[in-house]
Every structure is written in structure tokens, then in C-alpha cells.
């Protein structure tokens, strides 16, 4: 937790290191090797003699190649890594900062955010879009030199309030500032210059956090975002597909008006950006840290946030994407499809967990391949994946704090598979998930409620191992037991892996329990 201890270092403006020419060459070479490794593996994977159980083989192939396909498209995106040149803001623009408050959000957070907004150097007017009906908030806005707008009973998350506030205001540029974010004084100066190009509809900055040191979940959740706000979004900038990410996006009023206002939905940021892109507006991603906010620090808030995102993103995939498809550029079509299918990882995780269980319980397995051949063909892909992941971290926005293996983030993501799956299923069934703002305060839920899924999976694994032991001792012929040792051990090892993958979520749930009892 060390790197997150020094507050003066955290609240400081940062910009990703520029991309050098030689770095592009190295990245290109790595990507070429990676691509070639993928072809080499694919050429080996699909062979009839490998197929043991056709149905399971199809499932395993889907899970494996979904992951590899995503990686390859990700590489393609990284190849286009691009940073906009810093552009000074022209003086005299009229700028509004919108920040929203909802019942239940802590008062102190707004004290900090509004104070910081007041310190932003570029002339602007701050608005508090408030539906708490709490007189303290109106009082606070007045004290901080902000305009207080009472907007109660509007649909959507922030979008309803933003759209209502847009009417009757005249500012040409609107920064939608998340209330948990503390903006730095240079924020608007780093952003407004890009609007000089009349086609630019919105400018997004990196989303960074100041509380990853708070807990395991906070650190893990932050780790999941580092590479995204670093090289990935820079690649998206390079292909003209940079999206609005829900916080700290600055919009051009005419752009928002051209699509009938800010989009609604669980992933309203994504709805808005796909509509703007479909309208032909350009987007800019600025790889700079000009504010820091809060990342969920307890498991329940994290899982709620993930469910909301996965449900919302699938909504975009199923409803917005087909509508916008015709008017998107080729890059944008690919990019939004990739974003939209991100949370299918819930489904593929389920497949990975199920396969060893199916073997240990029913003796069926997807493929008969030699370990040595698998290693020989999969290792190059893995090596290239890791090498690329390591290499592109040079373009993180704040490498000192963000560089690393991000194992916490990976463990927590793997552990959250059930939530992603739930989001996917809910979208397919069309079940509505109510909008609740991501909690800025610790939420409480009992350990067992949170640990249900990982604990169940671990229990199932234990049952499978016990059943196997019973079969070995009493049911199977002696020769069979003696010759199948490696397969049984391999599958048991696979199970141990799965259990380890669940440990992140289990650990987080346990830690939360401790934090509650404090």
C-alpha cells in the first residue's frame, strides 16, 4: 500500500510519457510475433484427433478463443497508440461544471469537491445538480460560489439532471464532474484547447483515484483500470474511438443537443458516446491525471458497480449498437463490439470452472492433447501477451503508482465472474436493474452473503476431489487407477487453480467483515 501513502504525490498533475519512434517498432515486432503465435496455436488447436467430447471441446474452444480474439483485437488497438499534443485553452470560452448529488451521498465529499472546483483556474461556473432536498447542500453551494439547482424526480442517473440543467443555461462547454472526484486547478486548461477543432464533441481525461491504499478491494479495483486509462484509451484515441467513461468528460453543448441530450441507461456514458460517434462527432482522450476520485473500497459496492456496468454495457450492445452500426466508422464498429462483449468473460469463466468438475464427476473431458504439445503451442501466445502487457505499461498515466502485474485486480475480476454472468443473463432476459449510484460509503452485507459464490465453487471442488478419492479407493479397477494418476492429478490441479482464482473475492469478503467490526 506504500505508493498510495504520500498525499502530496497523489494530488499532482501527471501526463503519460510520449510515444517514441523506436517504441513503436518494438511494439510492432512484439505484436507481429504475437499474431504469428496465435496463428501457430490455432493451426494446432483445431484438429480432429484432439476432440474427445465434441460438446465440451466446442465450449472450451469458445472460451479459449474468445479470450485470444479479444487479446488480438486489443493488440490491434494498442498498435494505434496516440497522444494528442498539449493545446492551450483559448481564453474567453464559457464553461460550466456540473456535479450531481443524490440522497445518501456524504456531505463532506461535496465540501471537498466543490472547494476544489472553485480552485480550477480557467474561468467557469460550477453547478450543483441536487435532489437530496437537504438544505445543507444548498447552503454549501452558496458558500463555495456554486449555483444550486434543485432537480428532483428526474429519470436516469445523472443524465436526467444534466439534461434538465442544460436547458436554460448558455455555457458552451460542460464538464460533468463526478462528485467523488477532486479536480486539480489545471483541469480545464488541459482540456479546452482541443475544442478548437469544431468537430470535437467531447474530451475525456484519465480517471484516477486517491484511495487505492484504503483496502484490498480498492487496490484491486483500481488496478483493473490502470492499463485501460493508459495505453488502451490512447490506442482508442489513435483509432478515433475514445469513449466517455462516465466521469470527468467535457462535452460541447451543441454535440449533446444534436443527440437530444445526455443518454440514459445504466451505462449512460457509453450510450452518449456511441450516439455522438454515430452523429460524426470526434472524441479526444487526454492521458493526463487532472483529478482523483474514489474507487469502491468494499466488496459489495464493487460487485454492485460491476453488475450495473455489465448490465448496462450489454444493453448498449443489444440496443444502441445495432442502431448506430451503419453510421459508425469501421474502427468504431469493432471497438464498440469489443466493449459490448467485454463482460462475456462471465460465461467463459463458468466454462473454465465447469470443465474439471465435469471430468471429476462424470469422467468426460473436452480434448486429448499432450501437455508438452499444449505448452509448445500456447506458451508463445502467453509470452507475447505478457510481453505486450509489460511493454505498453510505459504509457501509463502515473507509472510510479500504476506499474505492475496487477494480480489483485486479476484475482478480483476472476472472482466476480458470477456477477458478469448475471448481468449478461439479465440483459438477455431484459430484466431491469434499478440505478443506484456507486456507493461512496461503505456498504454492509454479511460475509456469507458475499462469499456465497466463491464458497460454493470451492465446496463443489472439494466434493469433486472427495468423490474422486472414493472412486479410486472403491470403484475403479486397479490398473485404471494406476495409469490415470496424471490425468486425475492434472484435473485436481486445475481445480486448485480455480479455487485460487476464487480466493480474491473470498479474501475481500473476509477483509470487509473485519473492516465492519472496527
Amino acid at each position, binding site marked *: 500500500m506504500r505508493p498510495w501513502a504520500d498525499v502530496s504525490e497523489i494530488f499532482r498533475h501527471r501526463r503519460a510519457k510520449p510515444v517514441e519512434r523506436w517504441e513503436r517498432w518494438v511494439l510492432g515486432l512484439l505484436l507481429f510475433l504475437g499474431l*504469428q*503465435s496465435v496463428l501457430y496455436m490455432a493451426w494446432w488447436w483445431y484438429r480432429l484427433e484432439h476432440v474427445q467430447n465434441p460438446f465440451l471441446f466446442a465450449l472450451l474452444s469458445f472460451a479459449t478463443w474468445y479470450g485470444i480474439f479479444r487479446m488480438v483485437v486489443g493488440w490491434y488497438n494498442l498498435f494505434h497508440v496516440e497522444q494528442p499534443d498539449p493545446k492551450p485553452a483559448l481564453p474567453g470560452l464559457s464553461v460550466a461544471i456540473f456535479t450531481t448529488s443524490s440522497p445518501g451521498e456524504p456531505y463532506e465529499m461535496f465540501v471537498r469537491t466543490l472547494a476544489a472546483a472553485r480552485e480550477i483556474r480557467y474561468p467557469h461556473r460550477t453547478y450543483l445538480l441536487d435532489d437530496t432536498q437537504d438544505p445543507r447542500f444548498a447552503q454549501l453551494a452558496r458558500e463555495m460560489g456554486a449555483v444550486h439547482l434543485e432537480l428532483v424526480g428526474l429519470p436516469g442517473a445523472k443524465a436526467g439532471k444534466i439534461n434538465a440543467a442544460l436547458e436554460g443555461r448558455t455555457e458552451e462547454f460542460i464538464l460533468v464532474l463526478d462528485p467523488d472526484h477532486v479536480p486539480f486547478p489545471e483541469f480545464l486548461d488541459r482540456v479546452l484547447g482541443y475544442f478548437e477543432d469544431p468537430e470535437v464533441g467531447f474530451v475525456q481525461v484519465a480517471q484516477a483515484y486517491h484511495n487505492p491504499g484504503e483496502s484490498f478491494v480498492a487496490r484491486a479495483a483500481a488496478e483493473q483500470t490502470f492499463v485501460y486509462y493508459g495505453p488502451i484509451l490512447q490506442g482508442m484515441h489513435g483509432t478515433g474511438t475514445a469513449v466517455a467513461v462516465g466521469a470527468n468528460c467535457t462535452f460541447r453543448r451543441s454535440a449533446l443537443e444534436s443527440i437530444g441530450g445526455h443518454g440514459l441507461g445504466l451505462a449512460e456514458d457509453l450510450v452518449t458516446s456511441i450516439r455522438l460517434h454515430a452523429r460524426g462527432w470526434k472524441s479526444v482522450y487526454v492521458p493526463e491525471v487532472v483529478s482523483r476520485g474514489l474507487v469502491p473500497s468494499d466488496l459489495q459496492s464493487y460487485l454492485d458497480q460491476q453488475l450495473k456496468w455489465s448490465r448496462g454495457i450489454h444493453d448498449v450492445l443489444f440496443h444502441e449498437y445495432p442502431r448506430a452500426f451503419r453510421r459508425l466508422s469501421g474502427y468504431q464498429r469493432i471497438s464498440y463490439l469489443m466493449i459490448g462483449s467485454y463482460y462475456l468473460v462471465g460465461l467463459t469463466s463458468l466454462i473454465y470452472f465447469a470443465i474439471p468438475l465435469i471430468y471429476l464427476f462424470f469422467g468426460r473431458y473436452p480434448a486429448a492433447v499432450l501437455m508438452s504439445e499444449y*505448452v509448445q503451442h500456447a506458451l508463445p501466445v502467453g509470452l507475447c501477451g505478457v510481453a505486450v502487457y509489460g511493454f505498453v505499461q510505459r504509457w501509463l498515466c502515473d507509472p510510479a503508482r500504476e506499474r505492475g502485474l496487477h494480480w489483485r485486480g486479476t484475482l478480483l475480476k476472476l472472482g466476480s465472474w458470477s456477477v458478469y454472468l448475471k448481468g449478461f443473463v439479465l440483459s438477455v432476459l431484459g430484466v431491469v436493474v434499478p440505478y443506484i449510484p456507486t456507493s461512496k460509503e461503505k456498504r454492509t452485507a454479511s460475509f456469507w452473503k458475499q462469499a456465497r459464490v466463491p464458497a460454493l465453487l470451492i465446496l463443489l471442488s472439494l466434493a469433486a476431489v472427495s468423490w474422486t478419492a472414493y472412486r479410486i479407493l472403491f470403484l475403479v479397477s486397479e490398473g485404471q487407477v494406476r495409469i490415470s494418476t496424471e490425468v486425475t492429478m492434472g484435473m485436481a490441479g486445475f481445480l486448485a487453480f480455480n479455487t485460487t482464482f476464487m480466493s480474491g473475492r473470498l479474501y475481500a469478503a473476509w477483509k470487509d467483515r473485519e473492516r465492519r467490526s472496527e
Partner: protein
Amino acid sequence: MTPRKKYQIAFFALGWLVAIGVAFQFGLKVVVTRLYARVADGWTTVGQAISDVEGRALRGVRHTSRTDYLEPFRPILRSAEALRIPTRQLFGAYDGDFPKSFSGFAKLEESVGYRFPIISFYAAWGDKPEQQFPTRMVETIDRMGSVALVTWEPWVVDFDSALRPNLLPRSQREYAALASIARGDYDFYLVPWATAAAKFGRPILLRFAHEMNDPYRYPWGPQNGNRPEDFVAAWKHVHLIFQKMGAKNVLWVWSPHISMPWFEYYYPGPEWVDWVGMGVLNYGGVASWSRWWSFHQILEKAYPALLKFEKPLIVCELGTLSHDGDVLEWYRQAFYHIDHTYGRLKAIVFFNQSHDTTMSQYPLNWSVVQSPRVAAFIAMELERKSVL
């Protein structure tokens, strides 16, 4: 920069990329294969150790094991000397699921109520881990109280050209492969195999390059320019390597195709052979070249010639299909002749393969137990033999 120049640069860049890429894949492949070969031994040892733990637990719980059942055969099966001049007739079986699974084999033993002293399986030459000395398989057979009969097939094309640059390209390798083996071209493969066999230490029956006189079947047959003297030279060369590596526990089973003429010319000599083997498979009316042959009809012509070698005889593959004939009657006659006509048959190995695809496009079913009555009959015969 002229357009032509750009084009040239792009062309060379692509060439370099491809070259680097090929070097990368090739290098990784060689490194992985080498590393794996180094780790494989340790891996096998660990696997065997765990397998033994399982075996001990199993014995502790079930209070019985196959080894106890085969205790009477122990003196013969545990000594290479005794196995050279067996004092009892030995039965064995191969199962089509080997080496992946022993379930089919267990089912066969269950249905005939017998535990076979010989367990037979096939091993091919090549670079892959499963083509090296089958330690896990022979150890497993040993732990089960039986002795392994390994049919060792020199499929020389299975060696990877990338890893073995001094071998001929695959397409040219099969021609006169036996002479090439005799010259020592494959010692890189033979030496570790023989060393592992010596390390195993307990008796193994090794049936190398079987049916070498059949021009229709395997690549090491005469159709590929392999003369009888090449076979003999190859046999002796392989044998000598085993001797040099101290693999005295290996017994050599010379096994020609007895329906093809001139097999005597392929005999390496009495000091190079321990057992003389043969296959007795009745294809029935399955193909244009086959008809229903009884056990006796298959064996009678070659038997006198086989006797002349003065070695114990082993039927390495015994089986019948069910096309155009009565399986029960076939076995009835076979056992009659085993008892009364062919007294020098010291071992008989059932060929229990239910989906044999080596001879035809559709699988042939060589299952031993084709009906409960066949099972009952074979069970009765084996029971009678074990009382003797």
C-alpha cells in the same frame, strides 16, 4: 524517396519480420521440447510415486490386489531367466484402450474371471513424450503383478525433421529404413530407450519390428527396399545397444507374419532371440482377400518351421471377427488345438480391440467377449488351465 524505393523497403521489412518470426517460433519450439525432455523424467517419477501411493491406499482399503492373485506366476514373471524357459503356459491380453485407459482390460478380466499374467501393448518410435520408453505403462503392469509384452514399431517418419537435422527428409526416410537403423542413424532414440529399459530392471517381452516379412502392412516391410539381411542387421544392432546399456531384463520376441512365405530368412539367429511369436487372427469374410480360417488352418502350415527355431512360441495376437462364422466354435476349436496339436505354444495373448482401424476404413471388432457364451467358454478354459 521514389515509390519503388518504398516498395523495396516494405519488401525487405516483411522478409525480416517473417525471418524473425520463424526464428522465434522455431527457437521456442526447440527450447520447449528440450526442456520438456529434461523435465519429463522427473515428471514420470513423481507420477509413478503418486500412483504407488494410490495403489497402496487401494490395497489397504480393498484388502486384495491383482498381485496376490498372480502370486503363483511370480517365480516365472519376475526372473528373465525363468521367463526364457517358462514351466507353465501363460495367457495374456491386449486391450484397444491402452495406454489411455485400463477400463476395457478390467472389463475383459472381469467377464472371463481371470487375471492375465501377460499384458500386451504397442509402442511406436518417435520424438513425442509418449513415444519414449513407456515407463508408466510397464511400471503399472509390473505393480499389477503381470509382465509387459511391448510391440515396438519403428515408424521412422515420426521423428521431427526440425529436431533431427541429420536424418533424411520424411518422404525419403522409409525407404531402406532398416539398413539405416543398422547403420546407427537412430541410436539417438535407441540409447535412451534401452537405458530406461535397463533402469526398469524387471523382465519385459520386446517384440521389435513385427511382421517384417509382410509387404502389405508396415513400412518396415520388404516393399520399402528392406532386405532380410537388413532386418537381421537392424535387429542385431538394436540388440547390441540393449546389451551395452545393460538391459539384460529385455527378452526378444521375433514375430514374423506366418502366412507370408520366406519368413525364415528374417531370423537373426538363436543367440539373438528368446521367443518366437506370431499372430493368429481370423478376419472371416470381412474382405475380398479373407475367408473364415480356423485357428488350426492359420497355424498348421508354418508350425513345423517355427518349431525348428527351438524357442518357446507365443501367439502375440489371438482373435477372430464374427463375419460369416461362429465365434464360440472358433474358440472351442482353438483351445482344442492349443491343447492337442500345438504343445510348444508357451504363451497366448488375446487381441481385445473393439475398433481396429489399421486395416480397413470401417472399424473391425476383435472383442474377445462377443457373447456371454463365449465369455463363459473362455472363462472355463482359463480356469481349467490354471488348475493344471
